[in-house]
Protein backbone atom coordinates (compact mmCIF):
# COMPACT_ATOMS: atom_id res chain seq x y z
CA UNK A 1 0.00 0.00 0.00
CA UNK A 2 1.53 3.30 -1.03
CA UNK A 3 2.13 6.03 1.51
CA UNK A 4 0.01 8.39 -0.56
CA UNK A 5 -3.03 6.11 -0.74
CA UNK A 6 -2.71 5.24 2.93
CA UNK A 7 -2.62 8.93 3.85
CA UNK A 8 -5.54 9.87 1.61
CA UNK A 9 -7.64 7.12 3.21
CA UNK A 10 -6.73 8.52 6.62
CA UNK A 11 -7.67 12.05 5.53
CA UNK A 12 -10.97 10.74 4.11
CA UNK A 13 -11.76 9.09 7.42
CA UNK A 14 -10.99 12.24 9.41
CA UNK A 15 -12.95 14.45 7.00
CA UNK A 16 -15.95 12.10 7.07
CA UNK A 17 -15.71 12.07 10.88
CA UNK A 18 -16.05 15.86 10.89
CA UNK A 19 -19.15 15.61 8.67
CA UNK A 20 -20.56 12.87 10.91
CA UNK A 21 -20.02 14.92 14.06
CA UNK A 22 -22.27 17.59 12.60
CA UNK A 23 -24.79 15.13 11.13
CA UNK A 24 -25.16 13.09 14.34
CA UNK A 25 -25.66 16.27 16.38
CA UNK A 26 -28.32 17.63 14.03
CA UNK A 27 -29.99 14.20 13.83
CA UNK A 28 -30.19 13.74 17.61
CA UNK A 29 -31.28 17.31 18.36
CA UNK A 30 -33.98 17.06 15.69
CA UNK A 31 -35.29 13.75 17.06
CA UNK A 32 -35.43 15.02 20.64
CA UNK A 33 -37.06 18.27 19.54
CA UNK A 34 -39.57 16.61 17.17
CA UNK A 35 -40.83 13.88 19.50
CA UNK A 36 -40.98 15.85 22.75
CA UNK A 37 -44.79 15.84 22.59
CA UNK A 38 -45.04 12.26 21.26
CA UNK A 39 -45.03 11.37 17.59
CA UNK A 40 -46.23 8.32 15.62
CA UNK A 41 -44.50 6.73 12.63
CA UNK A 42 -47.28 7.92 10.35
CA UNK A 43 -46.89 11.50 11.60
CA UNK A 44 -43.15 11.39 11.02
CA UNK A 45 -43.59 10.13 7.47
CA UNK A 46 -46.21 12.79 6.79
CA UNK A 47 -43.66 15.45 7.73
CA UNK A 48 -40.68 13.95 5.95
CA UNK A 49 -42.20 12.90 2.62
CA UNK A 50 -41.12 15.20 -0.19
CA UNK A 51 -38.77 17.23 2.02
CA UNK A 52 -35.81 17.73 -0.34
CA UNK A 53 -33.62 19.60 2.17
CA UNK A 54 -33.78 16.84 4.80
CA UNK A 55 -33.38 14.21 2.09
CA UNK A 56 -30.16 15.93 0.96
CA UNK A 57 -28.97 16.12 4.58
CA UNK A 58 -29.48 12.38 5.10
CA UNK A 59 -27.87 11.52 1.75
CA UNK A 60 -24.75 13.34 2.98
CA UNK A 61 -25.06 11.51 6.33
CA UNK A 62 -25.28 8.09 4.65
CA UNK A 63 -22.37 8.79 2.30
CA UNK A 64 -20.20 9.99 5.19
CA UNK A 65 -20.97 6.74 7.06
CA UNK A 66 -20.12 4.72 3.95
CA UNK A 67 -16.71 6.40 3.77
CA UNK A 68 -15.97 6.51 7.50
CA UNK A 69 -16.91 3.04 8.75
CA UNK A 70 -15.06 0.86 6.19
CA UNK A 71 -11.79 2.80 6.63
CA UNK A 72 -12.03 2.44 10.40
CA UNK A 73 -12.87 -1.24 10.05
CA UNK A 74 -9.84 -1.61 7.79
CA UNK A 75 -7.54 -0.67 10.68
CA UNK A 76 -9.44 -2.91 13.09
CA UNK A 77 -9.08 -5.89 10.71
CA UNK A 78 -5.33 -5.27 10.39
CA UNK A 79 -4.77 -4.93 14.11
CA UNK A 80 -7.06 -7.66 15.42
CA UNK A 81 -7.03 -10.25 12.63
CA UNK A 82 -3.86 -9.30 10.72
CA UNK A 83 -6.12 -9.23 7.64
CA UNK A 84 -4.60 -7.18 4.83
CA UNK A 85 -4.27 -7.28 1.07
CA UNK A 86 -6.72 -7.64 -1.79
CA UNK A 87 -9.29 -9.80 -0.01
CA UNK A 88 -9.64 -7.19 2.74
CA UNK A 89 -10.05 -4.41 0.15
CA UNK A 90 -12.76 -6.36 -1.70
CA UNK A 91 -14.61 -7.13 1.53
CA UNK A 92 -14.46 -3.49 2.64
CA UNK A 93 -15.64 -2.13 -0.71
CA UNK A 94 -18.58 -4.56 -0.51
CA UNK A 95 -19.25 -3.32 3.04
CA UNK A 96 -19.10 0.33 1.91
CA UNK A 97 -21.48 -0.32 -1.01
CA UNK A 98 -23.88 -2.21 1.28
CA UNK A 99 -23.89 0.67 3.79
CA UNK A 100 -24.53 3.20 1.03
CA UNK A 101 -27.31 1.16 -0.62
CA UNK A 102 -29.10 0.32 2.62
CA UNK A 103 -28.80 3.91 3.83
CA UNK A 104 -29.96 5.48 0.58
CA UNK A 105 -32.85 3.02 0.42
CA UNK A 106 -33.95 4.16 3.87
CA UNK A 107 -33.60 7.82 2.85
CA UNK A 108 -35.75 7.14 -0.25
CA UNK A 109 -38.37 5.41 1.90
CA UNK A 110 -38.60 8.17 4.51
CA UNK A 111 -38.24 11.25 2.30
CA UNK A 112 -39.29 9.99 -1.16
Amino acid at each position, binding site marked *: *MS*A*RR*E*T*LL*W*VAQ*RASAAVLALCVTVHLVTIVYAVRGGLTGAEILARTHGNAAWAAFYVVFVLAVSVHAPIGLR*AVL*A*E*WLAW*RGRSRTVALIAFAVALALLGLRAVAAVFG
Partner: protein
Amino acid sequence: MSATLRVQVWRGGADGAFREYEVPRRESQTVLDVVTHIQRALDPTLAYRYACRVGMCGSCAMMVNGAARWTCRTHIDKVAKDGRLEVAPLRNLPVIRDLVADMREFFDKWARAGGQFRGARSRADDFARVPPQSASRQLADAGIECIGCAVCYASCDVVARLPEYLGPAALNRAWTLVVDERDAVGVERLRAVAGDAGALSCHTHLSCTERCPKGISPTAGIAGLKRAVSRAALEGEL
Protein backbone atom coordinates in the same frame (compact mmCIF):
# COMPACT_ATOMS: atom_id res chain seq x y z
CA MET B 1 9.21 1.61 55.90
CA SER B 2 9.46 -2.18 56.25
CA ALA B 3 12.92 -3.73 56.75
CA THR B 4 12.81 -5.83 53.61
CA LEU B 5 11.34 -5.74 50.17
CA ARG B 6 9.85 -8.82 48.47
CA VAL B 7 10.91 -8.65 44.85
CA GLN B 8 9.61 -10.81 42.01
CA VAL B 9 12.21 -10.85 39.25
CA TRP B 10 11.76 -12.36 35.78
CA ARG B 11 14.30 -15.12 35.19
CA GLY B 12 15.00 -16.88 31.92
CA GLY B 13 13.83 -16.17 28.37
CA ALA B 14 10.33 -15.80 26.96
CA ASP B 15 9.26 -19.03 28.69
CA GLY B 16 10.87 -18.07 31.99
CA ALA B 17 9.15 -17.30 35.28
CA PHE B 18 9.29 -14.92 38.22
CA ARG B 19 11.55 -15.76 41.14
CA GLU B 20 11.24 -14.07 44.53
CA TYR B 21 14.11 -12.38 46.37
CA GLU B 22 14.22 -10.58 49.68
CA VAL B 23 16.14 -7.34 49.55
CA PRO B 24 16.98 -5.05 52.50
CA ARG B 25 15.10 -1.76 52.34
CA ARG B 26 17.23 1.41 52.34
CA GLU B 27 16.73 5.16 52.23
CA SER B 28 16.43 6.69 48.73
CA GLN B 29 16.63 3.23 47.19
CA THR B 30 15.93 2.97 43.46
CA VAL B 31 14.66 -0.02 41.51
CA LEU B 32 18.10 -0.28 39.90
CA ASP B 33 19.67 -0.39 43.38
CA VAL B 34 17.41 -3.34 44.20
CA VAL B 35 18.26 -5.23 41.00
CA THR B 36 21.96 -4.52 41.53
CA HIS B 37 21.75 -5.80 45.11
CA ILE B 38 20.19 -9.04 43.89
CA GLN B 39 22.94 -9.56 41.32
CA ARG B 40 25.81 -8.64 43.62
CA ALA B 41 24.66 -10.20 46.88
CA LEU B 42 22.06 -12.87 46.13
CA ASP B 43 22.36 -14.26 42.62
CA PRO B 44 25.28 -13.30 40.35
CA THR B 45 23.65 -15.07 37.37
CA LEU B 46 21.00 -12.33 37.05
CA ALA B 47 21.33 -10.50 33.71
CA TYR B 48 20.28 -6.84 33.43
CA ARG B 49 21.49 -3.67 31.73
CA TYR B 50 22.53 -0.28 33.00
CA ALA B 51 25.28 2.22 32.39
CA CYS B 52 25.06 5.80 33.65
CA ARG B 53 22.74 5.42 36.71
CA VAL B 54 21.69 9.06 36.36
CA GLY B 55 18.96 9.01 33.70
CA MET B 56 21.08 9.88 30.69
CA CYS B 57 21.89 6.68 28.82
CA GLY B 58 18.47 5.05 28.53
CA SER B 59 19.74 1.50 29.06
CA CYS B 60 18.11 0.46 32.35
CA ALA B 61 14.40 0.58 31.45
CA MET B 62 12.33 -2.37 32.70
CA MET B 63 8.75 -3.21 33.55
CA VAL B 64 8.24 -2.23 37.19
CA ASN B 65 4.99 -3.47 38.73
CA GLY B 66 3.58 -3.72 35.21
CA ALA B 67 4.60 -0.28 33.95
CA ALA B 68 7.69 0.57 31.90
CA ARG B 69 10.08 2.84 33.82
CA TRP B 70 13.71 3.97 33.88
CA THR B 71 14.85 2.02 36.92
CA CYS B 72 17.80 4.23 37.89
CA ARG B 73 15.53 7.15 38.70
CA THR B 74 12.52 5.28 39.97
CA HIS B 75 12.43 5.32 43.75
CA ILE B 76 11.07 2.36 45.66
CA ASP B 77 9.03 4.78 47.80
CA LYS B 78 7.08 5.66 44.71
CA VAL B 79 6.36 2.22 43.25
CA ALA B 80 6.41 -0.29 46.11
CA LYS B 81 4.41 1.28 48.90
CA ASP B 82 3.32 -2.15 50.17
CA GLY B 83 6.87 -3.54 50.17
CA ARG B 84 6.33 -5.62 47.02
CA LEU B 85 8.00 -5.15 43.69
CA GLU B 86 7.79 -6.96 40.38
CA VAL B 87 10.56 -6.41 37.82
CA ALA B 88 10.40 -7.78 34.28
CA PRO B 89 12.04 -7.11 30.91
CA LEU B 90 10.51 -4.42 28.68
CA ARG B 91 7.24 -5.36 26.98
CA ASN B 92 6.89 -5.48 23.18
CA LEU B 93 10.51 -6.61 22.73
CA PRO B 94 11.95 -10.14 22.65
CA VAL B 95 13.55 -11.28 25.91
CA ILE B 96 17.19 -12.26 25.67
CA ARG B 97 17.56 -13.37 29.29
CA ASP B 98 16.20 -12.27 32.65
CA LEU B 99 15.76 -8.46 32.53
CA VAL B 100 17.55 -7.93 29.21
CA ALA B 101 15.34 -7.22 26.20
CA ASP B 102 16.54 -7.39 22.61
CA MET B 103 16.54 -3.76 21.43
CA ARG B 104 17.40 -4.41 17.77
CA GLU B 105 13.89 -4.04 16.37
CA PHE B 106 13.39 -0.86 18.41
CA PHE B 107 16.45 0.84 16.93
CA ASP B 108 15.99 -0.65 13.44
CA LYS B 109 12.65 1.17 13.39
CA TRP B 110 14.43 4.49 14.00
CA ALA B 111 16.34 3.84 10.78
CA ARG B 112 13.15 2.74 8.98
CA ALA B 113 11.41 5.96 10.06
CA GLY B 114 14.16 8.02 8.43
CA GLY B 115 15.81 8.82 11.74
CA GLN B 116 19.15 9.84 10.24
CA PHE B 117 19.89 13.54 9.79
CA ARG B 118 20.97 14.56 6.31
CA GLY B 119 21.73 18.22 5.76
CA ALA B 120 22.39 20.17 2.57
CA ARG B 121 25.63 21.82 3.74
CA SER B 122 29.14 20.49 3.58
CA ARG B 123 31.91 21.01 6.12
CA ALA B 124 33.20 23.84 3.92
CA ASP B 125 30.02 25.84 4.63
CA ASP B 126 29.45 28.07 7.62
CA PHE B 127 27.32 26.86 10.53
CA ALA B 128 23.57 26.93 9.99
CA ARG B 129 22.08 29.66 12.16
CA VAL B 130 18.80 28.51 13.70
CA PRO B 131 17.26 31.12 16.01
CA PRO B 132 16.45 29.41 19.35
CA GLN B 133 13.09 31.18 19.44
CA SER B 134 12.02 30.19 15.92
CA ALA B 135 8.86 28.06 15.69
CA SER B 136 10.63 25.11 14.08
CA ARG B 137 13.42 25.10 16.67
CA GLN B 138 10.86 25.19 19.49
CA LEU B 139 9.07 22.19 17.97
CA ALA B 140 12.34 20.29 17.65
CA ASP B 141 13.32 21.22 21.23
CA ALA B 142 10.11 19.64 22.53
CA GLY B 143 11.17 16.20 21.30
CA ILE B 144 14.93 16.26 21.01
CA GLU B 145 15.86 15.08 24.54
CA CYS B 146 14.88 11.46 23.90
CA ILE B 147 17.39 9.05 25.47
CA GLY B 148 16.20 6.00 23.54
CA CYS B 149 15.14 4.04 26.64
CA ALA B 150 12.16 2.37 24.88
CA VAL B 151 9.80 3.07 27.79
CA CYS B 152 7.34 4.57 25.30
CA TYR B 153 7.71 1.59 22.97
CA ALA B 154 7.03 -0.87 25.79
CA SER B 155 3.99 1.18 26.89
CA CYS B 156 2.43 1.41 23.42
CA ASP B 157 -0.63 -0.79 22.83
CA VAL B 158 -0.45 -0.19 19.08
CA VAL B 159 3.02 -1.81 19.00
CA ALA B 160 1.54 -4.73 20.95
CA ARG B 161 -1.21 -5.16 18.34
CA LEU B 162 0.71 -4.18 15.21
CA PRO B 163 4.28 -5.44 15.62
CA GLU B 164 5.52 -3.62 12.50
CA TYR B 165 4.29 -0.24 13.84
CA LEU B 166 7.30 2.08 14.01
CA GLY B 167 6.47 3.15 17.55
CA PRO B 168 6.54 6.44 19.47
CA ALA B 169 10.32 6.92 19.79
CA ALA B 170 11.14 6.38 16.10
CA LEU B 171 8.26 8.63 15.04
CA ASN B 172 9.25 11.29 17.57
CA ARG B 173 12.77 11.19 16.15
CA ALA B 174 11.41 11.54 12.60
CA TRP B 175 9.31 14.53 13.72
CA THR B 176 12.31 16.34 15.22
CA LEU B 177 14.00 15.99 11.81
CA VAL B 178 10.91 16.98 9.81
CA VAL B 179 10.87 20.30 11.70
CA ASP B 180 14.65 20.73 11.50
CA GLU B 181 15.34 23.70 9.22
CA ARG B 182 18.64 22.17 8.10
CA ASP B 183 17.11 18.86 7.06
CA ALA B 184 17.33 17.95 3.37
CA VAL B 185 15.49 14.59 3.38
CA GLY B 186 11.99 16.12 3.19
CA VAL B 187 9.30 14.10 1.43
CA GLU B 188 11.37 10.91 1.52
CA ARG B 189 11.05 10.83 5.30
CA LEU B 190 7.35 11.66 5.18
CA ARG B 191 6.90 8.65 2.89
CA ALA B 192 8.74 6.48 5.42
CA VAL B 193 6.37 7.46 8.24
CA ALA B 194 3.11 7.54 6.24
CA GLY B 195 2.71 3.81 5.52
CA ASP B 196 0.26 1.61 7.43
CA ALA B 197 2.96 0.92 10.04
CA GLY B 198 3.63 4.62 10.54
CA ALA B 199 2.23 7.71 12.22
CA LEU B 200 -1.31 7.22 10.91
CA SER B 201 -1.68 4.01 12.92
CA CYS B 202 -1.29 5.89 16.24
CA HIS B 203 -4.52 5.70 18.26
CA THR B 204 -3.58 8.62 20.50
CA HIS B 205 -3.84 6.48 23.63
CA LEU B 206 -1.13 8.76 25.09
CA SER B 207 0.55 5.92 27.01
CA CYS B 208 3.92 7.01 25.57
CA THR B 209 3.37 10.58 26.68
CA GLU B 210 2.27 9.51 30.15
CA ARG B 211 5.27 7.20 30.63
CA CYS B 212 8.13 9.10 28.97
CA PRO B 213 10.65 9.72 31.76
CA LYS B 214 11.98 12.78 29.93
CA GLY B 215 8.56 14.42 29.76
CA ILE B 216 8.47 14.29 25.97
CA SER B 217 5.12 13.91 24.21
CA PRO B 218 5.69 11.55 21.26
CA THR B 219 1.93 11.82 20.71
CA ALA B 220 2.33 15.51 19.88
CA GLY B 221 5.15 14.73 17.46
CA ILE B 222 3.08 11.97 15.83
CA ALA B 223 0.16 14.41 15.49
CA GLY B 224 2.59 16.78 13.75
CA LEU B 225 3.61 13.97 11.39
CA LYS B 226 -0.07 13.21 10.66
CA ARG B 227 -0.58 16.85 9.67
CA ALA B 228 2.60 16.93 7.60
CA VAL B 229 1.87 13.74 5.66
CA SER B 230 -1.78 14.76 5.11
CA ARG B 231 -0.69 18.10 3.68
CA ALA B 232 1.91 16.42 1.46
CA ALA B 233 -0.63 13.84 0.23
CA LEU B 234 -3.27 16.49 -0.55
CA GLU B 235 -0.71 18.60 -2.39
CA GLY B 236 0.35 15.57 -4.43
CA GLU B 237 3.90 15.53 -3.06
CA LEU B 238 3.75 12.19 -1.29
